């Protein structure tokens, strides 16, 4: 194991900036690296990275490897994996952290199989075992009903980390670090996919991931019309509207507002769950919210186990009165 050293973060950029998951990974990576008394490394892949590597140093990295090439402008499995394979073989980190994002969940498993190592995806907690110095990898399983702690004795120990599960460091622009450009020979003929088009389905108003207040509806809302009432409440609270899976599957609301294990992971101050039963796979996306409020007809609904305050009753009667009173309180 002596030859595997350092904790490496595979960073992501978004609109010319370090993405928030990357700063979270660097925050977590810094802690692990310090515990192991090793360095924190970061790899950034893209085109025209500019000042981004410096930002990674400010967020905790000791050394940033950059792969900057027009062929890497957009994520493609084959090109990014070629870069990662080379970097991992050259640098031999003992831990590799990626984000549980559209890129991470595509790149990580293929890379793990290429390298012949184990991988734990969507981790919520990472700790170094004091005896073995191996990484204990905690992740949700069974749709969030249970958690499992895994370990692996193949290196690097590969992990993807759930968004917002870790805290970033306060950026320190005076931190010093090294930036190492790496050269990768990419053969365009070996890239077997082509991005034809990227379609953004942005929802008007506040983004779900950034909202301090989220009003979410479930199957019991019954229709697209019903969601209008949730929108009204969300607007008054300056929040966003979310949904569990059934309203998305039924086409009442766009897929992009799904909260849950396979949708968005959100951590607002206030999460108002309306007509949501509280299936584990939904709770996996919202259970870290500061205050969960539940309105549901069924007193036995699972959501009440997560909620701080609840009303047992038909949302159609509860919500208008609640919305009216909230409006009054906020106006007063």
């Amino acid at each position, binding site marked *: 194991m002596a030859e595997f050293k350092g904790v490496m973060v595979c960073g992501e950029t978004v609109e010319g900036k370090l993405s928030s998951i990357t700063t979270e990974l660097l925050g977590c990576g810094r802690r692990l690296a310090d515990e192991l008394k090793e360095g924190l490394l970061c790899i950034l892949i893209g085109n025209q990275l500019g000042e981004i590597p410096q930002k990674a140093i400010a967020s905790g990295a000791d050394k940033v490897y950059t792969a900057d090439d027009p062929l890497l402008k957009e994520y493609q499995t084959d090109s990014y994996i070629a870069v990662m394979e080379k970097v991992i073989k050259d640098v031999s980190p003992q831990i590799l952290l990626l984000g549980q994002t559209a890129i991470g969940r595509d790149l990580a498993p293929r890379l793990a199989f290429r390298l012949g*190592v184990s991988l734990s995806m969507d981790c919520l907690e990472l700790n170094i075992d004091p005896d073995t110095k191996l990484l204990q990898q905690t992740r949700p399983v069974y749709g969030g009903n249970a958690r499992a702690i895994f370990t692996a004795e193949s290196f690097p120990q590969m992990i993807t980390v759930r968004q917002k599960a870790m805290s970033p460091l306060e950026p320190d622009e005076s931190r010093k670090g090294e930036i190492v450009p790496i050269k990768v020979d990419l053969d365009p003929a070996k890239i*077997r996919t082509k991005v034809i088009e990227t379609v953004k389905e942005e929802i008007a108003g506040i983004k779900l991931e950034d909202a301090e207040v989220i009003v979410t509806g479930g199957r019991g809302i019954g229709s697209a019309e019903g969601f209008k009432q949730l929108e009204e409440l969300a607007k008054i609270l300056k929040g966003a509207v979310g949904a569990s899976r059934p309203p998305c599957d039924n086409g009442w609301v766009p897929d992009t507002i799904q909260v849950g294990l*396979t949708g968005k992971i959100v951590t607002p101050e206030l999460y108002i769950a309306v007509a949501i039963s509280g299936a584990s796979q939904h709770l996996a996306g919202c259970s870290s919210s500061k205050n969960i409020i539940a309105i549901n007809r069924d007193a036995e609904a699972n959501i009440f186990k997560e909620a701080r305050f609840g009303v047992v009753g038909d949302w159609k009667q509860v919500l208008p009165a609640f919305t009216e*009173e909230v409006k009054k309180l906020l106006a007063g």
Partner: protein
Amino acid sequence: MNMIVCCKQVLDPEAPPASFKIDPANNKVVPPPGVPPVISPFDEQAVEAALRIKDNQGGKITVLSLGNNLLRDVVKKPLSMGADELILLEDEAFEGGDSWSTAYALATAIKKIGEFDLIFCGRQAADWDAGQVGSGIAELLGIPSVTVAKKVEAVDGKARVERVIADGYQVIEVTLPALITVSNELGEARYATLKGIMAAAKKQPIIWKPSDIGVDPSQIGAPGRRSKLFKLFQPVREGKCEIIEAETPAEAGTNLATKLREAKII
């Protein structure tokens, strides 16, 4: 168009959360009594993705399931939906695996099947939620993969895939043969028709043992694992919900707002 779909039999994820129990001594989930297992929902949608291509341009769909003591009524469901053939990798040697040993066995079986243009998997299985087997099979076979698809079409020797990303989707073209993992955004899988169920009842699955696909026993099931399960547990829920009582639901709504103000939440 030759298509292969990998389907996993899992404990029903829709079983009531209260029925979910763990046997901590063995780090195993205790199957809830009276709730039969199902095909993992994302895998059913993978079958649906293949069927939509078959509806449009014809083709053959072979379903591959791995496990031991698989329930015929469960694993035959893709046949009753319209798939053509079912191959079971069924042996106790396949038990206790992780993403590595499972992908290895499936990839080896797919090599034996030989001819394929598209392989479909669910994005993750409803039990371990690992999300690796699809990509792993593609890597082991050396073919391209597109993950988390919501729409798949086959045109001119290529597949055109809508891949879900955080704020929308990307349209990706990939050369064939390729592996696609399917997400719930694809839409609900079709129901089995009565005709389909009757046809499926007559079909016998093909059973392959480890020796039939020539796998090294040390690479499959529990011995083939590359991850170690250290502990399986249920997160503790605090369960201290204050229920707002009132004469009418509307009054409860009003009181809830007042309560949130008192607690300085709004």
